């Protein structure tokens, strides 16, 4: 074979190796010897793949709180018929699987190989799972599939992620054709993931460009990359537009056939599909915008920095940490290294001029103005209602005094119990019951005559005059009473004292 042909054969070697490398963690799992209680070997590779699918499904459902516990319970429900294991071992398995996909050292998984195209040793880094969020209270970490994890999931389905969106679009069309609306909805959800991961990748790319264009060569590469992405997005966008049209037509067809009356479910599905598709399309077109702005601003800004950044590689650990420690350099050197990272110092000064500045003058008041809950002194001429309320309040007070005399009740709960026993429960199904206690609580302690409630004139007057010489003291209790579904009130301690 001549040289040229050899080159053909090895071209794209790295990409091919990368895809092989992705499968590495699964085989690593396979090598782990795990057995159940009956000494049956557990199919770790299978569980690994299933876990990936589980994370994929959760991503699909936009269920982002997926941690070890969730995975363990998923594994349990899936394999408990096959293996005999206790709960703790499910959790251990889940942890092993997660740690295989996402090593606890923090380093990305890597894979070394000899690149026959470039005739040198190389290594590939990839990341399958990543931390997504965490709960500070329980110190639980949640995970989601990273870019390469998605790639791995797709790789087991015979196609690769960069074509994923187009394939989904194609499948959606087919499914709509056949009237498989449920499947179509799922297809759209998958498309959403594609768009999301595309967005994530763009963000990463953006940061990459911002930080580190080091040569004209890499600049060209990024430029090419962005152009490719743009082209691809345009194609997908066109397909989206057509799909929308297609869905619209399908919907109209169904509508005209009166299916929306006969098959409500189908019609609901297609309405949902329309909505979801629109929203995915919207997200997608935002990406289009983003690429354009990246091409126009980010890349140009980065190109400018080309004049300044000059080195190909830099190793903080070697160039700085080791130097400081091994020489050893003065402390101030360390300070100098770190200062670029820290915020600039701000000195806050007091200005003597403030002496002459305007001053805040606030009125001095002897008493705070009470915040009123329900304005009982309202002079609204809504007389029939007021009279009714007045009578009701009086009635309530009578019941209370009666209850106090008979049973020495001292809390609101007990009073309600008393009402129950006397088959008067309907009273606390009324709003005025609650108003009454709240107002009294606000005014506690209540002494007849001391409040400016003159008998007969205001709402509470009649009720309070019943107290005669006694003092009613009301304090908050601990619990919330919820006897009647419409109202709830905090419990109150009620005491009646002789003046």
């Amino acid at each position, binding site marked *: 074979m001549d040289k040229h042909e050899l080159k053909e054969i090895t071209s794209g070697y790295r990409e091919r190796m990368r895809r092989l490398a992705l499968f590495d963690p699964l085989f690593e799992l396979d090598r782990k010897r795990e057995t159940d209680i009956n000494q049956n070997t557990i199919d770790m590779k299978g569980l690994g793949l299933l876990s990936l699918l589980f994370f994929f499904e959760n991503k699909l459902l936009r269920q982002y709180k997926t941690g070890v516990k969730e995975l363990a319970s998923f594994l349990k429900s899936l394999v408990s018929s096959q293996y005999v294991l206790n709960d703790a071992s499910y959790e251990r398995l889940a942890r092993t699987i997660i740690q295989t996909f996402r090593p606890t050292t923090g380093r990305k998984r890597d894979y070394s190989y000899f690149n026959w195209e470039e005739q040198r040793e190389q290594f590939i880094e990839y990341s399958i799972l990543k931390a997504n969020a965490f709960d500070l209270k329980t110190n639980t970490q949640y995970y989601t599939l990273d870019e390469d994890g998605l790639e791995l999931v797709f790789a087991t389905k015979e196609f690769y992620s960069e074509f994923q969106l187009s394939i989904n679009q194609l499948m959606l069309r087919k499914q709509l054709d056949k009237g498989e609306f449920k499947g179509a909805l799922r297809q759209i959800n998958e498309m959403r993931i594609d768009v999301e991961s595309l967005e994530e990748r763009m963000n990463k790319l953006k940061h990459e460009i911002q930080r*580190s264009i080091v040569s004209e060569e890499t600049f060209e590469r990024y430029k090419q990359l962005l152009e490719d992405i743009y082209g691809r997005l345009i194609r997908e966008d066109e397909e989206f537009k057509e799909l929308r049209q297609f869905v619209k037509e399908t919907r109209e067809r169904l509508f005209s056939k009166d299916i929306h009356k006969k098959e409500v479910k189908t019609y609901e599905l297609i309405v949902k599909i329309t909505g979801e598709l629109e929203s995915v399309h919207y997200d997608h077109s935002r990406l289009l915008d983003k690429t354009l702005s990246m091409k126009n601003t980010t890349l140009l800004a980065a190109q400018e920095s080309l004049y300044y950044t000059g080195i190909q590689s*830099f190793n903080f650990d070697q160039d*700085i940490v080791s130097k400081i420690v091994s020489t050893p350099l003065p402390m101030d050197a360390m300070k100098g290294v770190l200062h670029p990272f820290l915020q600039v*110092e701000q000195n806050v000064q007091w200005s003597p001029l403030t002496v002459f500045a305007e001053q805040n003058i606030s009125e001095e008041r002897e008493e705070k103005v009470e915040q009123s809950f329900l304005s009982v002194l309202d002079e609204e001429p809504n007389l029939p209602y007021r009279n009714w309320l007045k009578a009701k309040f009086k009635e309530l007070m009578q019941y209370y005094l009666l209850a106090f005399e008979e049973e020495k009740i001292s809390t609101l709960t007990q009073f309600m119990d008393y009402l129950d026993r006397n088959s008067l429960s309907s009273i606390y199904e009324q709003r005025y019951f609650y108003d009454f206690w709240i107002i009294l609580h606000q005014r506690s302690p209540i002494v007849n005559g001391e409040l400016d409630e003159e008998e007969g004139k205001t709402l509470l007057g009649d009720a309070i005059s019943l107290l005669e010489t006694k003092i009613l003291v009301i304090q908050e209790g601990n619990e919330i009473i919820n006897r009647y579904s419409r109202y709830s009130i905090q419990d109150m301690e009620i005491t009646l004292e002789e003046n």
Partner: protein
Amino acid sequence: MNYSEQKIIKAFQLYTKLARDGVADREAVQLYRADDEIRGLLEMFSQEVDAVVISTSEQLFLVPKTKLSFFHVSNDWIKKNFLRSSSTNGDIYLLYFSTIILFGSFYDTYQSNEPTRQFIRLDEWIRFIQERIDQLKSHDEEELKEVEKEFSYNWRLIIEKWDDMDDIKETVKKQSGNTISRLSFIDTVKRFLLSQQLIQEIGNDEITLTEKAKTIIQRFFMEIEYNKGILEFIYGFDRRDERASH
């Protein structure tokens, strides 16, 4: 060169914002990039205060450059805001030391410009510090003492501080705040870096670098001007010369 008043004011406004916050937004970036005069002025201003303007397409950073810049946060400020009231300069130096090692653990290869790890666990960070402390200890004690006197270095203080601490205080439940242990010290450093938006917590005692930290590492430390003999530049100090003159 003659600048119009308007330009000077514009540049000064931009500078004030940077001086106040250390960072300015996209609008500032556009202004900075679009107008040569404003850019020139801004660079002059920052040069006067020994700072550098670093621009990305989204943000402008004002970064204190050398030991002289009065933009550096003072030791007192760090003490007051982050450390225990009884802390000494030794604590601050240890805080610096730990931070530098943290960055080093993310950027420890010549193979790529990207960080080599995605996150680091706090206990591993402590292990890295221990490694470096051990390395420091391998220097001859006498020699360390000697250099110390000569240039008022304080390496032994750092070593002592670190060695005096237990890994964790077993008697307390929460390894943060005021107990004296390595873990709680690292927790303090973590809080400091969080407040500076240099790291981010991702739970499970793991932390990762923020975009700001990455930007500064790659754009400042990899910039050719600063990178040639980076420590000498930053410290403005050539050890051999000093020694020779003594």
